[in-house]
């Protein structure tokens, strides 16, 4: 990811199909993508590639390290990183909690991949 400083994307999602779909779509847009299927692996990748990762997309309901904890930790590690939380659970309280934890935005599942990608691209530009 060395050539993509700040433009790398880390996707932390335990639903394999969704994670891979996101990865393919973002790579088609020219982004460099890292993937993790649980919160602990996501945190390890984030710590290792802190300089390159400009955007973190994370599910909230993750094995090992919860998405909300990952968001808070990512914000501490890199105050300028863009963070988007996603979840099948939604509502104003969920949205507010994700933002309070340190995310910039929240996307409720299910969502249209094209709309989500457009939103993520706008955040990285």
């Amino acid at each position: 990811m060395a050539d993509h400083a700040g433009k790398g994307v880390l996707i932390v999602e335990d639903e394999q199909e969704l994670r891979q779909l996101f990865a393919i779509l973002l790579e088609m847009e020219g982004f460099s993508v890292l993937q993790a299927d649980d919160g602990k692996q996501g945190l390890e990748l984030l710590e290792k590639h802190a300089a390159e990762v400009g955007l973190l997309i994370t599910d909230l309901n993750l094995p090992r390290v919860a998405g909300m904890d990952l968001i808070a930790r990512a914000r501490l590690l890199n105050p300028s990183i863009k963070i988007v939380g996603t979840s099948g659970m939604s509502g104003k309280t969920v949205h507010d909690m994700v933002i309070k934890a340190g995310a910039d935005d929240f996307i409720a599942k299910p969502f249209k991949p094209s709309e989500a990608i457009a939103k993520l691209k706008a955040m990285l530009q």
Partner: protein
Amino acid sequence: MSLRTATDYLWFNTRTKREYLNITPHVEEIVRKSGVQEGMVLVSAMHITAGVYVNDAEDGLIQDIDEWLEELAPFNKGYRHHRTGETNGDAHLKSLLVHHEVILPVTGGVLDLGPWQQVYYAEFDGCRRKRVVVKVMGE
């Protein structure tokens, strides 16, 4: 102090038909925002194929609960309810087994739960939008 109430909704769209989601932090946040110091909070599934229960957040136990419910109310048995064209008879019965709502105490402005008590949303017929109402009442 006068009686105050606050109502909020948690929405769910699970990726699988059956899921168990720990909603304790979200209920805690709704209680905190309500400003209620002494009272109670009702957490109630607004559906007849889902439930809300209080128990341990331990993965093995959650699998045990799921297997126990499946044993008592198996999926795709020849339920009379299926004569309507529905296929979710098991989800209705599972909902009855865990019940659809809980009432929790609020003391000193926070949920007054025992050390291992957590609030769970139990989905038995998911992959669609469903919700839980959270109503805080007290002073």
